[in-house]
């Protein structure tokens, strides 16, 4: 018995010693990139056993707030901080794009679950509550020969504040002046129509379950649930299917004239192959980090993420960053003090 307890104590020591030698870096924020982030932090830990990066996917807004209050060392967000937030911010975070993703319109049409075409006008009309039926002229004209039913469109949006909603409403604001003036872009907005479901999985579940419904989710949720999703007509007038190639194409335009702080929206991007509802997601790293050890780790992690890390994106259905953006970010990370 006593020998056992001795063993136990020794084991505990064995566990504690490496723990105490580890540097712990904490982050919090966006849920959308959580799968790739947890993969990255895990792989990075394998390369550097003395470094442990913890990430809590509590939402973009929560990430920004925790970073401001100093409870975490870095944040992550699906929407860049706006001027007002940056002006008020104490630690002036720098934005570093990590990967890109797409938000897709998914639907449930019994007996007709195939790819449909949506014009921007049709999408705006549906979400404004003006296009009410599946056989509306706005949908029929974009889908010639498809027997669209006369049923009501059961509209589903996110109920929780979310970066996905921000990307979607940011797109709607760009293509519809009416949406911009009446609703505007935001993580949580005053939805003119439809009902709310919690999380990407909630919207996907509700759409899957409800005949004649339509909602929007991150591309990966539509793929995982084997749900049909729409081609959307882009700024160049072409109907584009959302996939890694079309998301990368959307970033290509932005890559050449990327602002120095990387805060850029790539919804409704130009380019004939660009999928119009695409977005970057960002890491938020304080411009000045007092703790030398943590600063070194964060800078090193960003460098690694921009190099070998990018190769892990595609298997998880995230689009890797264009080379131009990577080069620019490598310059920017050197400015962290």
């Amino acid at each position, binding site marked *: 018995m006593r020998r056992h307890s001795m063993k136990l104590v020794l084991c505990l020591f064995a566990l504690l010693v490496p723990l105490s030698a580890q540097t712990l870096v904490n982050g919090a924020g966006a849920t959308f990139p959580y799968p790739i982030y947890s993969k990255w932090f895990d792989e990075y830990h394998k390369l550097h056993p003395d470094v442990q990066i913890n990430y809590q996917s*509590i*939402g*973009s*807004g*929560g990430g*920004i*707030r925790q970073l401001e209050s100093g409870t975490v060392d870095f944040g992550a967000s699906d929407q860049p901080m706006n001027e007002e*937030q940056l002006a008020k911010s104490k630690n002036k975070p720098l934005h570093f794009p990590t990967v890109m993703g797409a938000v897709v319109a998914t639907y449930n049409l019994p007996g007709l679950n195939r790819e449909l075409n949506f014009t921007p006008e049709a999408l705006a009309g549906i979400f404004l509550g003006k296009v009410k039926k599946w056989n509306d002229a706005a949908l029929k004209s974009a889908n010639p020969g498809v027997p669209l039913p006369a049923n*009501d469109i*059961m509209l589903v949006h996110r*109920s*929780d*504040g*979310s*970066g996905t909603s921000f990307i979607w409403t940011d797109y709607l604001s760009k293509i519809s002046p009416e949406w911009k003036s009446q*609703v*505007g*872009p*935001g*993580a*949580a*907005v*005053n*939805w003119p129509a*439809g*009902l*709310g*479901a*919690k999380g990407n999985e*909630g919207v996907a*579940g*509700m759409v899957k*379950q*409800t005949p004649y419904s339509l909602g929007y989710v991150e591309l990966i949720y539509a793929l995982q649930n084997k749900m049909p999703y729409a081609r959307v007509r882009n700024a160049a007038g072409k109907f584009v299917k959302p996939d890694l190639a079309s998301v990368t194409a959307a970033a290509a335009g932005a890559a050449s004239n990327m602002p120095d702080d990387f805060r850029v929206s790539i919804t409704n991007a130009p380019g004939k192959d660009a999928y119009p509802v695409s977005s970057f997601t960002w890491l938020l790293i304080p411009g000045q980090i007092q703790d030398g050890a943590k600063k070194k780790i964060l800078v090193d992690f960003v460098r690694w993420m921009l190099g070998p890390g990018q190769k892990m994106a595609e298997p998880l259905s995230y689009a890797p960053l264009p080379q131009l953006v990577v080069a620019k970010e490598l310059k920017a990370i050197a400015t962290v003090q």
Partner: protein
Amino acid sequence: MAAEPVREASRARGFFGRLRAGDQAATLITATFASSVLVLTALLVYELFHGSALSRDKFGWAFLFTKIWDPVAGEFGALPFIYGTLATSALALAMAVPLGLGAAVFLSELAPPRISDALTFVIELLAAVPSVIYGLLGVFILVPLMRQAGAPYGVGVFTASVVLAVMILPFIVSISREALLAVPREQREAALALGATHWESTWQVVIPFARLGIIGSVFLALARALGETMAVTMVIGNDPKIHASLLAPGYTIAAVIANEFTEATADLHLSALIELGLVLFFLTMLLNGIARLLILSTTRRGTAQ
């Protein structure tokens, strides 16, 4: 030798003295524990009040009566959420109270003890099921049923009420049963001796005798219904509007706080959500106060008779 009893006595006094000191210490410690409840409540109110300052200053009392909830424009009103919270809770009670009371009467008065114990065990098991499980059952079973029954989306205020009713039923049954079992045997026997039937004795003697416990169970259930978050948000539709139909989507205070708190970046939005928390707190207090009054008035009437 003569000193022996004296020493004995002093030892005894010392022992009792220590015991008395122990009593005082125990009183002090337990009083501290009890007052921590007050401190916690005060801190809670202070935090909610302090955190909602921005929203209270901007909207004032109008916050309670406006229907717009627009985080982008910074316009916030609590009315749809207050309506949703009260409507779902009231409907849930309307469904669960008769059902629960009936079940409690059967379990305590009519059922053979073995069946009563077995059923009570199952009911108490139901009370321990996490709310998200009820939410899932609601989404996968109730929502499709409601859609077939004619609710356009399947989710909505009525669906949420049904899920809530199922959730609070075990509380009502279990506590009411205890209250009914606590009624002295003599009360029943006296009623039967006076020529009352079994039903008359239950309805006119046992239930009135146990009414305090029954009302208590109802208000415990109400408190749970008012604050329930997860199961409700899964089936209510989360639409901050007041629709005429109970089959249409709605929203509750607890649900909107859970949904929007994580991504509320604007200070005013956060503040408005905290004020919603304050509203829910006072709503719960108000309803509990009414419950106290109800209990007081019925007790007085009881003793007058």
